[in-house]
């Protein structure tokens, strides 16, 4: 069973098509990068995956649960890190995490144990009582990752999570998520518009003008051109599909 299966998804804002017949799958334990220029439809896809918008066409399954028919089971398997920080800056790290645990219906004692565990894993144990406002951008992102993992999802969705970070923190975050993917068998969907965040053995999905114009191993997709950047340029500047 795939951690994420998207099939035939289409979405329109009135007359304007934002997504057209988008279909792909992410296997458990794999790191998939969703790449696309601004306006490609990534945000709409994320809004559909997180059930902010209702599906108009097609279906999305998380660990086999359809977002249409079993939205609660599907959302329970999904952890999300949004592009814009959704932490409460005036609350402490722990208070933010406790709020999220409550939203997922975790009992207080269980939430406490999970928070200990996740913060230790993100090497943030000593910052648990600090206000989020006092954390740097990289650490805030890690808090958001810890938060997204509290309810033990099988699929982690990161929407342009590295935006706004300095290059070193960006790299560290990317490595860290890959490590989680390897250690826990967690499926990751990482959306970005930055090519250097993609590695050769990643599952790569390129979205352009609402359509998937390429999907497969990054090394294979980039094989025909001098670099992945050249392939990306070619695919997103034309109507081509591979």
């Amino acid at each position, binding site marked *: 069973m795939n951690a994420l299966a998207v099939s035939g998804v289409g979405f329109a804002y009135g007359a304007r098509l934002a997504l057209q017949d988008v279909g792909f799958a992410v296997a458990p334990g794999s790191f998939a990068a969703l790449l696309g220029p601004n306006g490609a439809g990534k945000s709409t896809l994320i809004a559909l995956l997180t*059930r902010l918008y209702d599906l108009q066409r097609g279906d999305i399954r998380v660990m086999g649960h359809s977002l249409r028919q079993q939205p609660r089971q599907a959302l329970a398997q999904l952890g999300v890190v949004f592009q814009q920080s959704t932490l409460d800056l005036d609350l402490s790290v722990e208070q933010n995490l406790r709020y999220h645990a409550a939203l997922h*219906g975790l009992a207080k004692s269980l939430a406490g144990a999970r928070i200990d565990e996740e913060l230790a894993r993100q090497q943030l144990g000593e910052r648990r009582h600090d206000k989020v406002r006092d954390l740097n951008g990289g650490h805030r992102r890690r808090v958001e990752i810890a938060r997204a993992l509290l309810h033990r999802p099988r699929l982690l969705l990161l929407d342009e999570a590295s935006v706004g970070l300095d290059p070193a923190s960006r790299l560290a975050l990317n490595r860290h998520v890959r490590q989680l993917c390897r250690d826990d068998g967690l499926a990751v969907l990482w959306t970005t518009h930055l090519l250097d965040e993609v590695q050769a053995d990643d599952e790569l999905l390129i979205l352009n003008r609402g359509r998937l114009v390429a999907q497969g191993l990054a090394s294979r997709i980039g094989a025909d051109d001098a670099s992945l950047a050249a392939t990306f340029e070619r695919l997103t500047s034309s109507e081509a599909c591979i």
Partner: protein
Amino acid sequence: MNAYWYCLAGIVQREWLRFVLQRSRFFSALVRPLLWLLVFAAGFRAALGIAIIAPYDTYITYETYIVPGLACMILLFNGMQGSLSMVYDREMGSMRVLLTSPLPRAFLLASKLLAIALISLLQVYAFLAIAWLYGVQPPPVGLLAALPALLLVALLLSALGLLLSNGIRQLENFAGVMNFVIFPLFFLSSALYPLWKMREASEWLYWLCALNPFSHAVELVRYALYQRLNLSALLVCLGLTALFAVLAVLSFNPQHAALRRAN
């Protein structure tokens, strides 16, 4: 079932923490009704003679008359402000996190409305305490009896706020809410003047006031403060709260807003 309870407790606790952290908001929410009580009412005391009317047993001062209305005014402002930020926030920030919870959306929204209402009650009781020191002293048991009435009114007004914010694009900022919702509801009600006084001035204004849900809310609280039950006001408030809450939850769909913006 436990998951629902933990979720509700978490949402209420978060509102509480934000309330504790934003003390300035608490004080500014108190300034408004206190200005009405200490300044406006002092000026109007001479102009407005209040006859003996239910639920009062004796002649009362104008300050005594307007305290229930001002308590409801706090709920009105908070309810509108809270629900407006829920709508504004739904595509980003904390509301977006709230909506990724696997619990039903209707439950999440109802919990959020309840949390806003509970925090508003703290402000109302802080105001009633100051009014007490100022000399407006309803029976202590009345203060307790008013609690469920105030909670119902808080829910009614935040559900109304959410419904209006969902549906009306022009209400995207608080100035719009003030002009088109708060002021008409407040001034066309029994908060500042008994309805029979309004009838002396104008029959149609009287009817507008009599039909205004906020008048029923104020009268429910006024009666409860003096340990009396205003059954018709209670039924109107209960019915409208249920109606507004259902409509607000049904119309709270971020997708509608996105589609509307695109068209």
